[in-house]
């Protein structure tokens, strides 16, 4: 249908400008979902340093000899960029959770008429929570 025929003007008009709330919600949810599963893989990889730590491996962190697990984690945490990424992850997770709740409500047939409002609410809340947690996340960076 859509792909079989190029409508020139009509189909490549940058139609995203005309997207409605539900469409954006769908796109954001997808995007955040992929980020999260990507992170889950990374997360387990990083945590795997526990295996080495249990083996008794150690490493140097800020001039101290610590176990591999503590070293890896705290080492990462000391990087400014990691902290920024963490805030990003928080935003992504919070949006995914809030919109996920919205979707679950939709699935249960609750509050369907407010679906666009609840999407905007998810966005705003995500923003607020993210900003509010910046101090906590950024505390002691570069220690």
């Amino acid at each position, binding site marked *: 249908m859509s792909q079989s025929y190029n409508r020139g003007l009509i189909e490549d008009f940058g139609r995203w400008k005309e997207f409605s709330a539900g469409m954006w919600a769908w796109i954001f949810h997808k995007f955040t*979902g*992929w980020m999260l599963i990507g992170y*889950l893989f990374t997360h387990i990889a990083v945590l*795997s340093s526990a295996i080495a730590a249990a083996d008794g491996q150690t490493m140097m962190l800020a001039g101290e000899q610590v176990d591999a*697990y*503590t070293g890896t984690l*705290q080492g990462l*945490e000391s990087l400014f960029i990691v902290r920024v990424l963490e805030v990003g992850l928080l935003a992504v997770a919070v949006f995914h959770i809030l919109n*996920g709740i919205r979707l679950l409500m939709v699935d249960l047939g609750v509050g369907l008429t407010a679906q666009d409002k609840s999407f905007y609410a998810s966005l705003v809340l995500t923003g607020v929570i993210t900003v509010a947690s910046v101090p906590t*996340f950024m505390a002691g960076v570069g220690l």
Partner: protein
Amino acid sequence: MAERYSSFTPGGTAWFLQRVTAAFLIVVLAFHFFLLHFVNHASEITFAGTQARMENIGYFLTMVLFLIAGAFHGVNGVYNALVNQGLSGTPKKVVLAVLTIAGALLIFQGIWVALVMSGMI
């Protein structure tokens, strides 16, 4: 006419599980975040601290379930997204296999790590 859809696959179960895991994840993910970012700051995590928490069997089981649910939810989500995008035929089977293996490995690795942390192995 309905016969056109020969690849008859009732998708209800996966859809349902996606919702169930989501509901579970809301709770544990919030708990997880709170515990490891606000109660214990991420930058102050140590092996000892982790071990201490993991030795609690309840916490351990929660984390394992969290992992399984998350892995299923994420991998199934990715798979659904691809299928919705028009993935079909052999590529679809391949993707399903790859994702299943990746998911299984993730869970396997995660449980191993958790067992190590808890000191059980």
